[in-house]
């Protein structure tokens, strides 16, 4: 193996080495170095993104085919880097306001990004597991990073215990899949698994249960509301963005490349968790008073919609998932920018009714949030409508009519709680003003607002990139 053969994983190496250099810098300079480490982490993410964009479009295999750098992996790596960078940018003013100066936060985020990049490139069960563990362990740490706060500690502990359980299930499934096919590589499993044997189906069920936990799909969603509510808000924004996107990518790659000949065995699992997630996400969010909890249920529902695209197991469906996750990422980051900006002198505000009359106190913020909420509900011509359109279209083409119909019904129910917030902002009597929005947060909100509102003008590049990425799996 020569150094030259490592070129395809250069972005990963940049992230990892960058994380270690920043860690050493932070350790020697102490807590004062936090702003420099944060800026350094953003630079590392930007360099990695540029390197990924410069990579040749032909797929590259490394380490005996256990890591593959194809258009699919590159697409998701860019999304992951954007999600992590946005969360880091929004976290900077948040930590200042809360007197939490921890340079380790940026370092741990970088390492979790490295784990996600391994996940989306993984093409065998061992790389899959190691990527998931690297990501998850970092996430447990940052969930509890506000260690003086009982809620944050509880969120970290809860996430850790349940995450360990899900890793156990995933490993059990992986070992069954290995035992019944004699190989860990996805391509090898696909070749060996021509017909479903009971043991292999058992393995798929456990494997998918572990993955469903990581994407927080029903019935493995229980941790999500508690962790999202307890973790510091920028950490929640990060959780809802990058790791979810990476886990969905892994889910798609495992289903499509490892089990293409026995689609009937896993389609029913996907259809079930997709319907359950959409329905629970729509109904459970209605009664929520805390906006972070509401966003948790909203993200559960959105995972359900994204999985609708995976159910047919076609290239159109996968392309729909990619478009869905891109738009979901933009909408979620924008919404969390507003949640982070909900501050008064007394501290962070999380109650939804405190948004009352925002249209009169802070009209621009209210307008962008309203647009994001309309988009999350899936109302045309905003981006969220197109996201749902592509996945439902793929489901109908794949003859999953019931799935598509239930999805549309669930999004009608979901629209109720999104629009309720708009009603609170525009019709109710104004509550007290929030403190002015910090600049970095405003930038994230503006970018995501522009993307969401103007997506319909020029959707071509994203759709073309998603189609090309989806093709690389088939």
């Amino acid at each position, binding site marked *: *193996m020569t150094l030259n053969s490592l070129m395809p994983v250069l972005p990963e190496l940049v992230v*990892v080495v960058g994380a*270690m250099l920043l*860690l050493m810098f932070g350790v020697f300079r102490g807590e004062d170095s936090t702003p420099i480490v944060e800026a350094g982490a953003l630079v590392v993410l930007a360099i990695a993104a540029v390197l990924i964009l410069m990579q040749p479009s032909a797929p590259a295999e*490394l*380490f*005996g085919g*256990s*890591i593959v750098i194809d258009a699919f992996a590159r697409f998701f790596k860019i999304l992951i880097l954007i999600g992590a960078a946005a969360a880091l940018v929004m976290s900077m003013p948040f930590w200042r306001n809360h007197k939490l100066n*921890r340079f*380790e936060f940026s*370092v*741990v985020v970088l*390492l*979790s990004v*490295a*784990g996600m990049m*391994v996940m989306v490139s993984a093409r065998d069960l*061992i*790389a899959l597991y*190691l*990527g998931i*563990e*690297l990501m998850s*362990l*970092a996430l*447990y*740490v940052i969930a*509890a*990073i506000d*260690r003086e706060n009982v809620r944050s500690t509880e969120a*970290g502990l809860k996430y850790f215990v349940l995450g360990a359980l899900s890793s156990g299930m995933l490993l059990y499934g992986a070992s*069954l899949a290995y035992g*019944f*096919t*004699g*190989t860990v590589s996805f391509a090898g499993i696909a070749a*060996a698994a021509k017909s479903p*044997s*009971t*043991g292999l189906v*058992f393995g798929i069920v456990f494997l998918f249960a572990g993955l469903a936990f990581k994407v927080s799909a029903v019935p493995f969603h229980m941790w999500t509301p508690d962790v999202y509510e307890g973790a510091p808000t920028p950490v929640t924004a990060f959780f809802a963005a990058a790791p979810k996107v990476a886990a969905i990518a892994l889910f798609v790659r495992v289903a499509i490349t490892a089990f293409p000949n026995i689609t009937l065995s896993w389609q029913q699992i996907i259809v079930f968790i997709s319907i359950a997630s959409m329905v629970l996400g729509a109904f459970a969010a209605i009664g929520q008073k805390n906006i972070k909890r509401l966003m948790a249920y909203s993200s559960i529902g959105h995972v359900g919609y994204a999985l609708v695209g995976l159910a047919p197991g076609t290239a159109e469906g996968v392309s729909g998932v990619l478009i869905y996750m891109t738009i979901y990422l933009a909408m979620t980051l924008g919404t969390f920018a507003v949640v982070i900006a909900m501050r008064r002198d007394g501290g962070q505000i999380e109650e939804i009714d405190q948004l009352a009359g925002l249209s009169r106190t802070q009209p621009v913020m209210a307008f962008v949030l309203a647009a994001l909420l309309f988009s999350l509900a899936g109302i045309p011509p905003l981006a969220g409508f197109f996201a749902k359109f592509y996945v439902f279209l793929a489901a109908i083409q794949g003859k999953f009519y019931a799935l598509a119909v239930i999805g549309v019904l669930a999004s009608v129910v979901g629209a109720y709680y999104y629009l309720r917030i708009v009603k609170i902002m525009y019709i109710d009597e104004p509550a007290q003003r929030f403190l002015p929005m910090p600049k970095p947060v405003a930038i994230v909100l503006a970018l995501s607002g522009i993307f969401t509102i103007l997506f319909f003008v020029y959707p071509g590049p994203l759709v073309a990139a998603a189609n090309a990425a989806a093709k690389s799996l088939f």
Partner: protein
Amino acid sequence: MMTVPAFFFYLFSAIAVASAFMVIAGRNPVHSVLWLILTFVNAAGLFLLVGAEFLAMILVVVYVGAVAVLFLFVVMMLDVDFAELREGFLQYLPIGALVGFVFLVELVLVVGTWVVGPGIASAIKAPIPNAAQVTNTEAIGRVLYTTYVHYFQIAGLVLLVAMIGAIVLTLHHRVNVKRQSISSQNARTRDTAIEVVKVKTGEGI
């Protein structure tokens, strides 16, 4: 006439099963951990018998040397009243038995349809490299740092995250802690260290 390997197999496995039983039967948690260590050592002996000396050594080093010692630390440092924990334990028995039964049925179903992959039989017959010429420690070493070097590195990163996490979440920088200062200790002279006090007779200091 029993052969030597068979004798050791029955010896190790009998002790392993008996001490495993003692782990859950013991009333004193410290005794349980000690029985657990005995189980590990005997399991390592069983691995040795089948020629997996690397696994045997890892079992002793990692499980006895690290995990069991960690258990002992936790059991001894946390003053947990295990008798109290066990109170009302039996009330979970029906549901536990039910779950266990379902799991057993599922396992039987799985094992009942066990199929060996088509390539496995020939793969076992011709292990690479030849087991007669290379010890399995060496065989693992040959691939661990070459073919699977990326797994090794990623696992290292996982450990790095674990270390950072443990430090971030538990290390408190306290003020007013008296720490050892080696340079000032070495810089001490007779003049700075010793003070001559004139004590009046019968009064003390």
